[in-house]
């Protein structure tokens, strides 16, 4: 649970995008483009409906003509090329009229309990016009050029869970399709990708009705949907300890099961080799300008080469071949490579691990109550066990708490500042669990209270820490075992960990605090899902297979 390792995570078959596509395929969801009322400038709205068994969900897309100087995909923007909501059911005209007044305003608007998410996207300046121009000229865009970006629009925040008046997660508790985490958000983005591809073709067609082409289907699949994610996502991992635990526990248990297999069938061995080869292509196609990520990518590419060479000679017929392979990886590969190996090891073992998807949700409410009857000595022992790493830190050194998490008044968004350079201390958010545990540990040592209840009566300032420690004592992966206030902390590590569970690829940090990703690249579109494999798209296909 160190940040450097969490910041090297890759998507796996447990990831939420993949869970969604498997479910949609298995449950035979139907999709329908119900409205597409958009003019030649790209202004108008569209409605895409996904029919699940028992419920229908509609992506309502509002497309705008955004002046170039207002285009910023950061959460701090106030206008976008397209804005979206996922509607529970099928909207009527009154719903559309109401939402047209609110969805384009995003945070400044208001949605209702009928809306499950609120989100927005901007065109990629690098390739949007290029793709429109080519299609309107009756030509396909150059695959190399489009691969440099990998998407036509980038989303930013996809707000769910009741934000800005939308539906609470509790309200969807009885929907099987939304039991896994973040399924409404993943469905929203999946439908947004389909809309964006239709939109680019539509605009080309409006410009040159006689000449315009649709995108070649193979090239079309290579477009994902981009996303820019900032600091707002990082505190979530700290404020949802039970959820974090369940995600990591599922991944650890999946790896444990695979390593415990006494032998590997020919089929799984062949599937593993093929997936490893695809992971190498994926690593080669992954681009980033961030020096830290560039170094990690060099490691990853070397690691995937090393894996290929190792597989050429490794004796996979020996007992416990997957465990041996994992041990080889642990001793040989960088963190990037090790975490990629975790993903690869799970890949051919769906029958063995996919049931763990059902364990990845969490009800934080079941875990947040404090056990006041706990003897104080027990709490102290827990702190020493869970936060031993934090007790070893010299907290009087400025570098150990150089950073401070706060919420900005201007944007109401989480921010990270310099504690000793900016007047932020009165506004500190409780996002340094290690430092706070160390403070509580000192107070515990000085207290003669017999129980946690008596201690907290005198020390309400440690109530948050006492709760976290008790949760972490029950749930081994609830707490990141690293200093989130350190001068060298990289919030992008937290973002990457969370995004990898979403199923994102191509992490491209743009600073230490925000990251770009690509989602659903190579995934079948809604109209293709019924006839295509739902879960064989995350890694690029092998050229020698004629794919």
């Amino acid at each position, binding site marked *: 649970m160190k940040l450097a390792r969490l910041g090297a995570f890759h998507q796996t078959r447990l990831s939420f995008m993949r869970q969604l596509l498997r479910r949609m395929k298995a449950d035979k969801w139907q999709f329908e483009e119900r409205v597409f009322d958009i003019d030649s400038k790209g202004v108008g709205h569209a409605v895409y409906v996904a029919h699940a068994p028992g419920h229908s969900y509609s992506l309502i897309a509002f497309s705008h003509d955004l002046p170039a100087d207002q285009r910023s995909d950061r959460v701090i923007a106030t206008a976008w090329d397209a804005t979206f909501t996922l509607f529970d059911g099928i909207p009527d005209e009154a719903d559309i009229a109401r939402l047209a007044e609110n969805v384009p305003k995003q945070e400044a608007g208001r949605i209702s309990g009928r809306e499950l998410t609120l989100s927005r996207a901007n065109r990629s300046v690098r390739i949007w016009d290029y793709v429109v121009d080519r299609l309107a000229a009756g030509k396909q865009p150059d695959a190399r050029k489009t691969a440099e970006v990998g998407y036509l629009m980038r989303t930013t925040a996809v707000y769910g869970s009741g934000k800005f008046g939308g539906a*609470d997660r509790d309200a969807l508790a009885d929907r099987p399709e939304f039991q896994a985490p973040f399924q409404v958000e993943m469905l929203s983005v999946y439908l947004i990708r389909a809309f964006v591809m239709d939109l680019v073709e539509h605009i080309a067609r409006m410009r040159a009705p006689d000449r315009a082409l649709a995108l070649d289907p193979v090239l079309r699949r290579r477009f994902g949907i981009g996303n820019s994610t900032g600091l707002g996502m990082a505190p979530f991992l700290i404020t949802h300890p039970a959820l974090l635990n369940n995600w990591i526990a599922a991944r650890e248990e999946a790896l444990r099961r695979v390593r415990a297999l006494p032998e590997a069938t020919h089929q799984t061995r062949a599937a593993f080799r093929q997936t490893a080869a695809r992971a190498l292509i994926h690593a080669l196609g992954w681009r980033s300008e961030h020096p830290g990520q560039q170094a990690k990518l060099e490691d990853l590419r070397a690691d995937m080469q090393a894996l290929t060479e190792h597989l050429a000679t490794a004796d996979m017929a020996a007992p416990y071949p997957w465990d041996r392979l994992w041990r080889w990886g642990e001793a040989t590969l960088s963190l990037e490579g090790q975490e990629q190996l975790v993903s690869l090891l799970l890949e051919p073992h769906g029958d063995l691990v996919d049931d763990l998807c059902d364990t990845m949700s969490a009800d934080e409410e079941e875990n947040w109550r404090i056990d*006041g009857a706990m003897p104080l000595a027990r709490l102290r022992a827990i702190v020493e066990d869970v936060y031993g790493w934090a007790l070893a830190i010299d907290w009087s050194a400025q570098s150990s708490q150089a950073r401070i998490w706060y919420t900005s008044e201007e944007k109401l968004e989480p921010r990270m500042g310099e504690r000793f350079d900016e007047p932020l201390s009165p506004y500190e958010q409780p996002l340094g669990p290690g430092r706070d545990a160390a403070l509580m540990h000192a107070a515990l040592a000085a207290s003669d209270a017999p129980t946690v209840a008596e201690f907290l*009566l005198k020390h309400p300032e440690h*109530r*948050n820490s006492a709760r976290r420690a008790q949760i972490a004592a029950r749930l081994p992966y609830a707490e990141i075992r690293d200093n989130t206030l350190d001068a060298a902390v990289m919030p992008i590590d937290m973002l990457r960990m969370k995004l990898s569970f979403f199923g994102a690829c191509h992490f491209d940090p743009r*600073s230490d605090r925000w990251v770009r990703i690509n989602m659903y690249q190579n995934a079948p579109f809604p109209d293709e899902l019924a006839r295509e494999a739902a879960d064989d798209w995350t890694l690029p296909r092998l050229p020698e297979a004629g794919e």
Partner: protein
Amino acid sequence: MSWSLNETEALARKAARGGGMDWGLAEETGKAVRWLCTAGWPGAEALAELLPAQDGVKWEAVRPRTDTDPWTARDGILCPSAAGAALTDRAQDFAEGRTIAMAATARPLLLVPYTAWAADLAGRPLSIRWPGVTVTCGGEGTHADMPDPAALTVARTDTLEIAPASETTGQPVARHPRCDLPADTVRTLTAFARRTYAPGTPESRATGAGAGLTDND
């Protein structure tokens, strides 16, 4: 205006923190307000009344002295968030059949969720009672007996008792999926929540969200 429970809880948590509570208490206060909204009771309104009334007070002045019976506050009136936290921390006592009485307590409505949580922890139904109101929690859900409905929202009560319940009295309390918050309640809570937000500075604008590479390509 119709609010989701999640955003109501978030607003209440931030407001409680802005009103001076430590984070752990503020988190529980947010959950308490959510619980009350789910019951269809004016929890957000109660918090919006409580926070200005105890603005600036010290914890030691309003937290319960649990070695007295009834519990009392040093400066006369108990804070329901402080008393509620102490109550749930002692849920084990209820399992053993104990009754807890409190002297002057502000906004007793805010104590009801803590009673429900204590009932869960103790594994037996509990009732909270002050003049005009009896609410029984646990077992077969929440039931309310309110001969005087106005008593639910009193600013203070001078007597209050939480005890193991042997029988359920009153009407079952229906669950509500959302809540309607009055504009003045939202205004008050937002003003307290705002105290937790750092004013913008040139440094925070430049680097708080991470400048880095262009975001428009």
